[in-house]
Protein backbone atom coordinates (compact mmCIF):
# COMPACT_ATOMS: atom_id res chain seq x y z
CA UNK A 1 0.00 0.00 0.00
CA UNK A 2 1.69 3.23 -1.07
CA UNK A 3 0.03 5.19 1.72
CA UNK A 4 1.83 3.23 4.39
CA UNK A 5 5.14 3.54 2.64
CA UNK A 6 6.43 6.48 4.73
CA UNK A 7 5.67 4.51 7.86
CA UNK A 8 7.38 1.42 6.50
CA UNK A 9 10.38 3.50 5.52
CA UNK A 10 10.46 4.97 9.00
CA UNK A 11 10.48 1.49 10.45
CA UNK A 12 13.21 0.42 8.07
CA UNK A 13 15.33 3.37 9.13
CA UNK A 14 14.86 2.53 12.77
CA UNK A 15 15.68 -1.10 12.10
CA UNK A 16 18.87 -0.16 10.27
CA UNK A 17 20.17 1.89 13.15
CA UNK A 18 19.18 -0.77 15.65
CA UNK A 19 20.98 -3.43 13.66
CA UNK A 20 24.12 -1.35 13.47
CA UNK A 21 24.26 -1.46 17.27
CA UNK A 22 25.31 -5.07 17.06
CA UNK A 23 28.12 -4.55 14.61
CA UNK A 24 31.70 -4.58 15.76
CA UNK A 25 32.85 -1.04 16.53
CA UNK A 26 35.35 0.40 14.10
CA UNK A 27 37.06 2.44 16.81
CA UNK A 28 40.81 1.99 17.14
CA UNK A 29 41.73 2.35 20.80
CA UNK A 30 44.60 4.61 19.89
CA UNK A 31 47.35 4.66 22.47
CA UNK A 32 47.09 0.95 23.14
CA UNK A 33 46.25 -0.10 19.65
CA UNK A 34 47.96 1.45 16.63
CA UNK A 35 47.30 0.97 13.03
CA UNK A 36 50.46 0.50 10.94
CA UNK A 37 51.05 3.42 8.62
CA UNK A 38 51.02 3.07 4.86
CA UNK A 39 54.35 2.55 3.06
CA UNK A 40 54.42 6.06 1.66
CA UNK A 41 53.31 7.74 4.88
CA UNK A 42 55.07 11.05 5.47
CA UNK A 43 55.83 11.47 9.13
CA UNK A 44 58.73 12.96 11.01
CA UNK A 45 62.02 13.21 9.12
CA UNK A 46 64.97 10.88 9.64
CA UNK A 47 68.51 11.57 8.52
CA UNK A 48 69.87 8.31 7.17
CA UNK A 49 73.31 6.77 7.40
CA UNK A 50 75.29 4.37 5.24
CA UNK A 51 76.03 0.88 6.51
CA UNK A 52 79.45 1.94 7.71
CA UNK A 53 77.82 4.60 9.89
CA UNK A 54 78.72 7.64 7.80
CA UNK A 55 75.92 10.15 7.40
CA UNK A 56 74.33 10.34 4.02
CA UNK A 57 73.74 14.06 4.34
CA UNK A 58 76.44 16.13 2.70
CA UNK A 59 75.16 19.50 3.79
CA UNK A 60 74.27 20.70 0.31
CA UNK A 61 71.13 22.50 1.56
CA UNK A 62 69.15 21.48 -1.50
CA UNK A 63 66.40 20.32 0.85
CA UNK A 64 66.29 23.73 2.45
CA UNK A 65 66.03 25.30 -0.98
CA UNK A 66 63.24 22.95 -2.00
CA UNK A 67 61.26 23.35 1.18
CA UNK A 68 58.12 25.39 0.47
CA UNK A 69 57.62 26.14 4.14
CA UNK A 70 61.20 27.20 4.77
CA UNK A 71 61.35 24.73 7.62
CA UNK A 72 64.92 23.47 7.16
CA UNK A 73 68.11 25.16 8.19
CA UNK A 74 71.44 23.64 7.08
CA UNK A 75 74.94 24.79 7.79
CA UNK A 76 77.81 22.78 6.40
CA UNK A 77 81.40 22.26 7.36
CA UNK A 78 84.42 20.50 5.84
CA UNK A 79 85.10 16.82 6.43
CA UNK A 80 88.58 15.58 6.97
CA UNK A 81 89.91 12.04 7.10
CA UNK A 82 90.61 12.53 10.79
CA UNK A 83 87.04 13.58 11.56
CA UNK A 84 84.79 12.23 8.84
CA UNK A 85 81.04 12.62 9.13
CA UNK A 86 80.02 11.86 5.58
CA UNK A 87 81.66 10.80 2.33
CA UNK A 88 82.99 13.59 0.16
CA UNK A 89 84.06 17.07 1.11
CA UNK A 90 81.37 18.43 3.38
CA UNK A 91 78.80 17.48 5.96
CA UNK A 92 75.97 19.24 7.73
CA UNK A 93 77.32 20.61 10.98
CA UNK A 94 73.93 22.08 11.80
CA UNK A 95 70.74 20.58 10.55
CA UNK A 96 67.44 21.76 12.00
CA UNK A 97 63.84 21.25 10.98
CA UNK A 98 61.06 23.27 12.49
CA UNK A 99 58.25 20.78 12.84
CA UNK A 100 55.69 23.52 13.28
CA UNK A 101 56.53 25.02 9.91
CA UNK A 102 56.88 21.75 8.07
CA UNK A 103 53.87 20.76 6.03
CA UNK A 104 55.10 17.18 5.48
CA UNK A 105 55.08 17.61 1.74
CA UNK A 106 58.14 15.45 1.21
CA UNK A 107 59.84 17.85 -1.21
CA UNK A 108 63.02 17.71 0.86
CA UNK A 109 63.08 13.98 0.29
CA UNK A 110 62.80 14.50 -3.44
CA UNK A 111 65.42 17.21 -3.54
CA UNK A 112 68.10 15.36 -1.62
CA UNK A 113 70.84 14.08 -3.94
CA UNK A 114 71.97 11.38 -1.50
CA UNK A 115 68.62 10.19 -0.15
CA UNK A 116 69.78 11.39 3.22
CA UNK A 117 66.54 12.83 4.45
CA UNK A 118 63.51 10.60 4.53
CA UNK A 119 60.07 11.21 5.97
CA UNK A 120 59.56 8.35 8.39
CA UNK A 121 56.52 6.84 10.07
CA UNK A 122 56.74 8.68 13.35
CA UNK A 123 53.63 10.87 13.72
CA UNK A 124 53.41 11.53 17.42
CA UNK A 125 54.83 15.01 17.54
CA UNK A 126 53.70 17.18 20.34
CA UNK A 127 55.34 20.13 21.99
CA UNK A 128 54.64 22.29 24.94
CA UNK A 129 56.89 25.05 23.69
CA UNK A 130 57.71 26.49 20.28
CA UNK A 131 61.39 25.92 20.82
CA UNK A 132 60.78 22.20 21.26
CA UNK A 133 59.35 22.09 17.76
CA UNK A 134 62.80 22.67 16.28
CA UNK A 135 64.39 19.28 15.88
CA UNK A 136 68.18 19.50 15.77
CA UNK A 137 70.41 17.10 13.95
CA UNK A 138 70.99 14.69 16.83
CA UNK A 139 67.23 14.12 17.12
CA UNK A 140 66.81 13.57 13.42
CA UNK A 141 69.84 11.40 12.83
CA UNK A 142 69.27 7.69 12.64
CA UNK A 143 70.49 5.77 15.66
CA UNK A 144 73.48 3.44 15.21
CA UNK A 145 73.76 -0.16 16.31
CA UNK A 146 77.30 0.02 17.63
CA UNK A 147 79.38 2.83 19.02
CA UNK A 148 82.18 2.41 16.45
CA UNK A 149 79.66 3.39 13.78
CA UNK A 150 79.17 6.82 15.33
CA UNK A 151 80.36 9.87 13.48
CA UNK A 152 82.88 11.45 13.27
CA UNK A 153 85.02 8.52 12.21
CA UNK A 154 88.65 8.27 11.39
CA UNK A 155 88.99 6.93 7.87
CA UNK A 156 91.83 6.04 5.57
CA UNK A 157 92.63 8.80 3.13
CA UNK A 158 91.33 8.70 -0.41
CA UNK A 159 88.57 6.22 0.24
CA UNK A 160 85.48 8.47 0.62
CA UNK A 161 85.97 11.01 -2.12
CA UNK A 162 82.65 10.71 -3.79
CA UNK A 163 79.85 12.54 -2.00
CA UNK A 164 76.91 11.30 -4.06
CA UNK A 165 76.71 7.51 -4.29
CA UNK A 166 75.55 5.41 -7.20
CA UNK A 167 71.81 5.03 -6.80
CA UNK A 168 69.04 2.76 -8.00
CA UNK A 169 65.54 3.93 -8.79
CA UNK A 170 63.43 4.19 -5.65
CA UNK A 171 61.28 1.17 -4.92
CA UNK A 172 58.11 2.22 -3.13
Amino acid sequence: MPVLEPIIELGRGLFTTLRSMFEKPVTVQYPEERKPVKPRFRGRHVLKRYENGLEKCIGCALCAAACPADAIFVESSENSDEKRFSPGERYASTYEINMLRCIYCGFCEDACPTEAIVLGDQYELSFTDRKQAIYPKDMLLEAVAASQLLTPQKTEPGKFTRSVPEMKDPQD
Partner: protein
Amino acid sequence: MTFASILEWLIKGFVWVMILLGGFAYLTYYERRALARIQVRIGPNRAGPLGLLQPIADAIKLIFKEELMPARADKLLFFLAPIITLTPALVITAVVPFGPEGLNFPLFGRVITWQIADINVGILYIMSIASIAVYGIVLAGWSSNNKYAMLGGLRSTAQMISYELALGLSFVSVIVLADSTRMIDIVEAQKSMWFMVLQPVGMVIFLIATLAEVNRSPFDMPEAEQELAAGYHSEYGGMKFALLFMAEYDKMIAICIIAATIFFGGYREFWFLQNTWFSVDQTPILGPVYVFIKVFILLFGMIWVRATLPRIRYDRLMAFGWKILLPLSLALVFLTATGILLAQEVNPLFMWGIPVVSLAAGFIAILGMYQTLRRKEHARA
Protein backbone atom coordinates in the same frame (compact mmCIF):
# COMPACT_ATOMS: atom_id res chain seq x y z
CA MET B 1 0.22 20.62 57.97
CA THR B 2 2.55 19.62 60.68
CA PHE B 3 6.25 20.06 61.08
CA ALA B 4 6.77 16.36 60.36
CA SER B 5 5.01 16.54 57.00
CA ILE B 6 7.06 19.54 55.95
CA LEU B 7 10.18 17.67 56.96
CA GLU B 8 9.03 14.67 54.98
CA TRP B 9 8.49 16.79 51.88
CA LEU B 10 11.85 18.40 52.26
CA ILE B 11 13.64 15.11 52.59
CA LYS B 12 11.78 13.44 49.77
CA GLY B 13 12.17 16.47 47.54
CA PHE B 14 15.87 16.69 48.25
CA VAL B 15 16.43 13.02 47.58
CA TRP B 16 14.44 13.18 44.37
CA VAL B 17 16.27 16.24 43.10
CA MET B 18 19.56 14.51 43.84
CA ILE B 19 18.36 11.45 41.93
CA LEU B 20 17.35 13.63 39.00
CA LEU B 21 20.66 15.44 38.95
CA GLY B 22 22.58 12.19 39.09
CA GLY B 23 20.22 10.81 36.50
CA PHE B 24 20.99 13.75 34.24
CA ALA B 25 24.70 13.09 34.47
CA TYR B 26 24.32 9.42 33.69
CA LEU B 27 21.74 10.04 31.02
CA THR B 28 24.35 11.99 29.08
CA TYR B 29 26.67 9.03 29.49
CA TYR B 30 23.94 6.59 28.48
CA GLU B 31 23.09 8.66 25.46
CA ARG B 32 26.68 8.98 24.35
CA ARG B 33 27.29 5.28 24.74
CA ALA B 34 24.10 4.22 23.00
CA LEU B 35 24.56 6.73 20.21
CA ALA B 36 28.12 5.58 19.77
CA ARG B 37 27.05 1.95 19.51
CA ILE B 38 24.46 2.86 16.92
CA GLN B 39 27.14 4.69 14.98
CA VAL B 40 29.43 1.64 15.29
CA ARG B 41 31.77 3.42 17.68
CA ILE B 42 32.58 2.69 21.32
CA GLY B 43 31.85 6.00 22.99
CA PRO B 44 33.39 7.44 26.14
CA ASN B 45 35.36 4.68 27.85
CA ARG B 46 38.44 6.40 29.22
CA ALA B 47 37.47 8.19 32.42
CA GLY B 48 37.17 5.50 35.03
CA PRO B 49 36.03 1.92 34.45
CA LEU B 50 33.94 1.80 31.26
CA GLY B 51 34.09 5.59 31.19
CA LEU B 52 31.70 5.78 34.10
CA LEU B 53 33.42 8.84 35.53
CA GLN B 54 32.98 10.77 32.29
CA PRO B 55 29.94 12.77 33.52
CA ILE B 56 31.92 13.85 36.57
CA ALA B 57 34.82 14.93 34.39
CA ASP B 58 32.40 16.88 32.21
CA ALA B 59 30.86 18.53 35.23
CA ILE B 60 34.24 19.60 36.54
CA LYS B 61 35.13 20.98 33.15
CA LEU B 62 31.91 22.98 32.99
CA ILE B 63 32.33 24.36 36.50
CA PHE B 64 35.76 25.73 35.72
CA LYS B 65 34.82 27.27 32.41
CA GLU B 66 34.58 30.99 32.03
CA GLU B 67 31.15 32.53 32.44
CA LEU B 68 30.34 35.06 29.79
CA MET B 69 27.85 37.87 29.98
CA PRO B 70 27.10 39.31 26.55
CA ALA B 71 27.66 43.06 26.43
CA ARG B 72 24.10 44.24 26.05
CA ALA B 73 22.31 41.29 27.53
CA ASP B 74 19.51 41.74 29.98
CA LYS B 75 21.62 40.83 32.97
CA LEU B 76 18.90 39.76 35.37
CA LEU B 77 16.97 37.63 32.91
CA PHE B 78 20.13 36.21 31.43
CA PHE B 79 21.01 35.04 34.90
CA LEU B 80 17.54 33.80 35.78
CA ALA B 81 16.68 32.02 32.54
CA PRO B 82 18.65 28.82 33.23
CA ILE B 83 17.06 28.58 36.64
CA ILE B 84 13.59 29.13 35.22
CA THR B 85 14.28 26.42 32.68
CA LEU B 86 15.61 23.92 35.16
CA THR B 87 13.04 24.31 37.91
CA PRO B 88 9.99 22.94 36.03
CA ALA B 89 12.08 20.03 34.82
CA LEU B 90 12.87 19.16 38.41
CA VAL B 91 9.46 19.69 39.98
CA ILE B 92 7.30 18.17 37.27
CA THR B 93 7.74 14.63 38.55
CA ALA B 94 6.68 15.50 42.09
CA VAL B 95 3.26 13.94 41.62
CA VAL B 96 4.39 10.73 40.00
CA PRO B 97 3.94 7.65 42.20
CA PHE B 98 6.80 5.19 42.36
CA GLY B 99 5.07 2.52 44.31
CA PRO B 100 1.58 1.38 45.23
CA GLU B 101 -0.50 3.32 47.65
CA GLY B 102 -0.47 0.39 50.03
CA LEU B 103 3.24 0.49 50.47
CA ASN B 104 3.88 2.74 53.40
CA PHE B 105 6.60 2.53 55.88
CA PRO B 106 5.45 3.68 59.25
CA LEU B 107 8.04 6.08 60.56
CA PHE B 108 7.59 8.28 63.61
CA GLY B 109 3.95 7.32 63.54
CA ARG B 110 3.57 8.67 60.02
CA VAL B 111 2.67 7.01 56.78
CA ILE B 112 5.14 7.76 54.04
CA THR B 113 4.11 7.26 50.45
CA TRP B 114 6.20 6.65 47.37
CA GLN B 115 5.41 10.03 45.97
CA ILE B 116 6.34 13.55 46.89
CA ALA B 117 2.88 15.05 46.61
CA ASP B 118 -0.29 13.06 46.19
CA ILE B 119 -2.64 15.63 44.76
CA ASN B 120 -5.92 14.72 43.15
CA VAL B 121 -5.28 16.83 40.04
CA GLY B 122 -1.86 15.32 39.41
CA ILE B 123 -2.14 15.20 35.66
CA LEU B 124 -3.26 18.82 35.45
CA TYR B 125 -0.27 19.77 37.54
CA ILE B 126 1.97 18.02 35.04
CA MET B 127 0.34 19.81 32.13
CA SER B 128 0.68 23.21 33.71
CA ILE B 129 4.29 22.74 34.74
CA ALA B 130 5.12 21.41 31.30
CA SER B 131 3.99 24.67 29.76
CA ILE B 132 6.00 26.80 32.18
CA ALA B 133 9.19 25.20 30.90
CA VAL B 134 9.03 27.21 27.71
CA TYR B 135 9.46 30.53 29.54
CA GLY B 136 13.01 29.76 30.52
CA ILE B 137 13.95 28.95 26.97
CA VAL B 138 12.38 31.99 25.40
CA LEU B 139 13.82 34.24 28.09
CA ALA B 140 17.25 32.71 27.61
CA GLY B 141 16.97 33.43 23.91
CA TRP B 142 15.67 36.93 24.36
CA SER B 143 17.99 38.13 27.11
CA SER B 144 21.16 37.04 25.30
CA ASN B 145 20.89 39.93 22.84
CA ASN B 146 21.77 37.60 20.03
CA LYS B 147 19.67 37.07 16.94
CA TYR B 148 20.30 33.38 16.70
CA ALA B 149 19.47 32.84 20.32
CA MET B 150 16.33 34.90 19.94
CA LEU B 151 15.20 32.93 16.90
CA GLY B 152 15.91 29.68 18.71
CA GLY B 153 13.85 30.79 21.65
CA LEU B 154 10.96 31.87 19.46
CA ARG B 155 10.99 28.67 17.48
CA SER B 156 10.97 26.74 20.67
CA THR B 157 7.93 28.64 21.93
CA ALA B 158 5.99 28.17 18.74
CA GLN B 159 6.85 24.51 18.64
CA MET B 160 6.01 23.85 22.26
CA ILE B 161 2.71 25.65 22.07
CA SER B 162 1.74 23.72 18.95
CA TYR B 163 2.64 20.32 20.30
CA GLU B 164 1.27 21.00 23.73
CA LEU B 165 -2.24 20.79 22.32
CA ALA B 166 -1.73 17.27 21.06
CA LEU B 167 0.05 16.40 24.28
CA GLY B 168 -2.74 17.76 26.41
CA LEU B 169 -5.38 15.94 24.40
CA SER B 170 -3.58 12.65 24.71
CA PHE B 171 -3.58 13.29 28.46
CA VAL B 172 -7.32 13.72 28.18
CA SER B 173 -7.75 10.26 26.62
CA VAL B 174 -5.90 8.84 29.58
CA ILE B 175 -8.00 10.78 32.05
CA VAL B 176 -11.13 9.48 30.38
CA LEU B 177 -9.84 5.91 30.43
CA ALA B 178 -8.77 6.08 34.07
CA ASP B 179 -11.73 8.15 35.16
CA SER B 180 -9.47 10.19 37.40
CA THR B 181 -6.76 12.81 37.29
CA ARG B 182 -4.95 11.44 40.28
CA MET B 183 -1.74 9.70 39.26
CA ILE B 184 -2.12 6.68 41.53
CA ASP B 185 -5.62 6.06 40.20
CA ILE B 186 -4.31 6.26 36.66
CA VAL B 187 -1.66 3.67 37.43
CA GLU B 188 -4.06 1.40 39.29
CA ALA B 189 -6.50 1.59 36.37
CA GLN B 190 -3.81 -0.03 34.26
CA LYS B 191 -3.60 -3.00 36.57
CA SER B 192 -4.98 -5.48 34.06
CA MET B 193 -4.34 -3.62 30.85
CA TRP B 194 -1.85 -0.92 30.08
CA PHE B 195 -3.32 2.11 28.37
CA MET B 196 -0.75 1.55 25.70
CA VAL B 197 -2.92 -1.36 24.51
CA LEU B 198 -6.23 0.45 24.88
CA GLN B 199 -5.06 3.64 23.26
CA PRO B 200 -2.06 2.80 21.04
CA VAL B 201 -2.47 5.80 18.77
CA GLY B 202 -2.74 8.09 21.78
CA MET B 203 0.53 6.66 23.02
CA VAL B 204 2.24 7.32 19.70
CA ILE B 205 0.92 10.89 19.67
CA PHE B 206 2.11 11.36 23.22
CA LEU B 207 5.59 10.10 22.40
CA ILE B 208 5.85 12.28 19.29
CA ALA B 209 4.56 15.35 21.11
CA THR B 210 6.96 14.80 24.00
CA LEU B 211 9.86 14.66 21.58
CA ALA B 212 8.76 18.09 20.38
CA GLU B 213 8.20 19.31 23.93
CA VAL B 214 11.71 18.51 25.07
CA ASN B 215 13.23 19.69 21.78
CA ARG B 216 14.70 16.37 20.92
CA SER B 217 15.59 15.40 17.42
CA PRO B 218 13.89 15.20 14.96
CA PHE B 219 12.16 18.25 16.44
CA ASP B 220 15.25 20.02 17.72
CA MET B 221 14.58 23.17 15.74
CA PRO B 222 15.45 25.57 18.62
CA GLU B 223 19.04 24.41 18.47
CA ALA B 224 19.45 23.61 14.80
CA GLU B 225 23.22 24.04 14.55
CA GLN B 226 23.27 24.61 10.83
CA GLU B 227 20.88 27.52 11.02
CA LEU B 228 21.11 28.99 14.50
CA ALA B 229 24.57 28.21 15.88
CA ALA B 230 23.45 26.64 19.15
CA GLY B 231 20.02 28.28 19.32
CA TYR B 232 18.82 29.69 22.57
CA HIS B 233 21.92 28.75 24.52
CA SER B 234 24.45 30.20 22.06
CA GLU B 235 25.61 32.81 24.54
CA TYR B 236 25.73 30.63 27.60
CA GLY B 237 28.86 29.09 28.98
CA GLY B 238 30.13 27.42 32.10
CA MET B 239 27.65 26.58 34.81
CA LYS B 240 24.75 28.48 33.22
CA PHE B 241 25.08 26.35 30.13
CA ALA B 242 25.29 23.32 32.37
CA LEU B 243 21.97 24.29 33.91
CA LEU B 244 20.29 24.60 30.52
CA PHE B 245 21.79 21.31 29.47
CA MET B 246 20.66 19.74 32.72
CA ALA B 247 17.16 21.07 32.18
CA GLU B 248 17.05 19.49 28.76
CA TYR B 249 18.07 16.08 30.00
CA ASP B 250 15.98 16.25 33.15
CA LYS B 251 13.00 17.06 30.97
CA MET B 252 13.75 13.94 29.00
CA ILE B 253 13.81 11.87 32.15
CA ALA B 254 10.69 13.51 33.50
CA ILE B 255 8.74 13.05 30.32
CA CYS B 256 9.76 9.40 30.14
CA ILE B 257 8.65 8.88 33.72
CA ILE B 258 5.33 10.46 32.88
CA ALA B 259 4.95 8.40 29.72
CA ALA B 260 5.75 5.27 31.69
CA THR B 261 3.18 6.25 34.28
CA ILE B 262 0.28 7.07 32.04
CA PHE B 263 0.72 4.61 29.20
CA PHE B 264 3.01 1.83 30.37
CA GLY B 265 1.56 0.97 33.71
CA GLY B 266 3.80 3.12 35.90
CA TYR B 267 5.04 1.16 38.86
CA ARG B 268 2.87 -1.84 37.97
CA GLU B 269 4.61 -5.02 36.95
CA PHE B 270 4.85 -6.24 33.39
CA TRP B 271 1.73 -8.09 32.35
CA PHE B 272 3.39 -11.51 32.30
CA LEU B 273 4.41 -11.13 35.94
CA GLN B 274 0.89 -10.64 37.22
CA ASN B 275 -0.08 -12.60 40.31
CA THR B 276 3.47 -13.80 40.85
CA TRP B 277 5.97 -12.83 43.51
CA PHE B 278 7.15 -10.08 41.17
CA SER B 279 3.82 -8.29 41.26
CA VAL B 280 3.90 -5.01 43.13
CA ASP B 281 0.89 -6.14 45.11
CA GLN B 282 3.03 -8.79 46.72
CA THR B 283 6.42 -7.13 46.61
CA PRO B 284 5.77 -3.40 46.69
CA ILE B 285 9.46 -2.57 46.79
CA LEU B 286 9.72 -3.53 43.11
CA GLY B 287 7.63 -0.51 42.08
CA PRO B 288 10.54 1.91 41.59
CA VAL B 289 12.46 -0.83 39.82
CA TYR B 290 9.72 -1.23 37.25
CA VAL B 291 9.55 2.51 36.74
CA PHE B 292 13.29 2.56 36.25
CA ILE B 293 13.21 -0.26 33.70
CA LYS B 294 10.43 1.38 31.74
CA VAL B 295 12.13 4.76 31.79
CA PHE B 296 15.38 3.16 30.69
CA ILE B 297 13.67 1.60 27.69
CA LEU B 298 11.78 4.78 26.80
CA LEU B 299 14.98 6.81 27.00
CA PHE B 300 16.60 4.36 24.67
CA GLY B 301 13.73 4.99 22.29
CA MET B 302 14.48 8.72 22.36
CA ILE B 303 18.16 8.14 21.71
CA TRP B 304 17.36 5.68 18.97
CA VAL B 305 15.08 8.14 17.23
CA ARG B 306 17.75 10.80 17.51
CA ALA B 307 20.27 8.50 15.89
CA THR B 308 17.90 7.66 13.06
CA LEU B 309 15.85 10.62 11.94
CA PRO B 310 17.10 13.89 10.48
CA ARG B 311 15.63 17.16 11.66
CA ILE B 312 12.37 17.99 9.91
CA ARG B 313 11.73 21.24 8.14
CA TYR B 314 10.09 23.97 10.18
CA ASP B 315 6.93 24.38 8.09
CA ARG B 316 6.44 20.60 8.03
CA LEU B 317 6.87 20.55 11.78
CA MET B 318 4.13 23.08 12.20
CA ALA B 319 1.89 21.47 9.59
CA PHE B 320 2.35 18.10 11.25
CA GLY B 321 1.52 19.46 14.66
CA TRP B 322 -1.53 21.45 13.68
CA LYS B 323 -2.99 19.57 10.74
CA ILE B 324 -2.31 15.97 11.73
CA LEU B 325 -1.66 15.58 15.44
CA LEU B 326 -4.22 18.02 16.76
CA PRO B 327 -7.26 16.71 14.83
CA LEU B 328 -6.18 13.15 15.39
CA SER B 329 -5.86 13.56 19.13
CA LEU B 330 -9.17 15.38 19.28
CA ALA B 331 -10.76 12.49 17.43
CA LEU B 332 -9.15 10.06 19.84
CA VAL B 333 -10.64 11.82 22.83
CA PHE B 334 -14.03 11.53 21.22
CA LEU B 335 -13.53 7.88 20.25
CA THR B 336 -12.29 6.93 23.69
CA ALA B 337 -15.16 8.62 25.42
CA THR B 338 -17.68 6.99 23.08
CA GLY B 339 -16.10 3.59 23.57
CA ILE B 340 -16.24 3.89 27.32
CA LEU B 341 -19.82 5.05 27.24
CA LEU B 342 -20.83 2.14 25.03
CA ALA B 343 -18.89 -0.29 27.20
CA GLN B 344 -20.70 0.93 30.27
CA GLU B 345 -24.18 1.16 28.77
CA VAL B 346 -24.28 -1.65 26.22
CA ASN B 347 -21.57 -4.28 26.40
CA PRO B 348 -18.10 -4.27 28.00
CA LEU B 349 -16.72 -5.69 24.77
CA PHE B 350 -17.03 -2.23 23.25
CA MET B 351 -13.90 -1.39 25.22
CA TRP B 352 -12.00 -3.27 22.52
CA GLY B 353 -13.53 -1.01 19.94
CA ILE B 354 -11.35 1.82 21.23
CA PRO B 355 -7.99 0.52 19.99
CA VAL B 356 -9.50 -0.74 16.75
CA VAL B 357 -11.24 2.50 15.88
CA SER B 358 -8.24 4.52 17.05
CA LEU B 359 -5.98 2.58 14.74
CA ALA B 360 -8.41 3.31 11.92
CA ALA B 361 -8.27 7.01 12.83
CA GLY B 362 -4.50 6.81 12.87
CA PHE B 363 -4.58 5.28 9.43
CA ILE B 364 -6.71 8.15 8.18
CA ALA B 365 -4.19 10.56 9.66
CA ILE B 366 -1.37 8.80 7.84
CA LEU B 367 -3.42 9.04 4.67
CA GLY B 368 -3.82 12.76 5.25
CA MET B 369 -0.12 13.12 5.87
CA TYR B 370 0.63 11.26 2.67
CA GLN B 371 -1.72 13.49 0.72
CA THR B 372 -0.37 16.78 2.05
CA LEU B 373 3.24 15.76 1.55
CA ARG B 374 2.52 14.69 -2.01
CA ARG B 375 0.69 17.84 -2.87
CA LYS B 376 3.63 19.92 -1.73
CA GLU B 377 5.98 17.96 -3.94
CA HIS B 378 3.80 18.64 -6.95
CA ALA B 379 3.52 22.31 -6.14
CA ARG B 380 7.26 22.73 -6.14
CA ALA B 381 7.95 20.75 -9.30
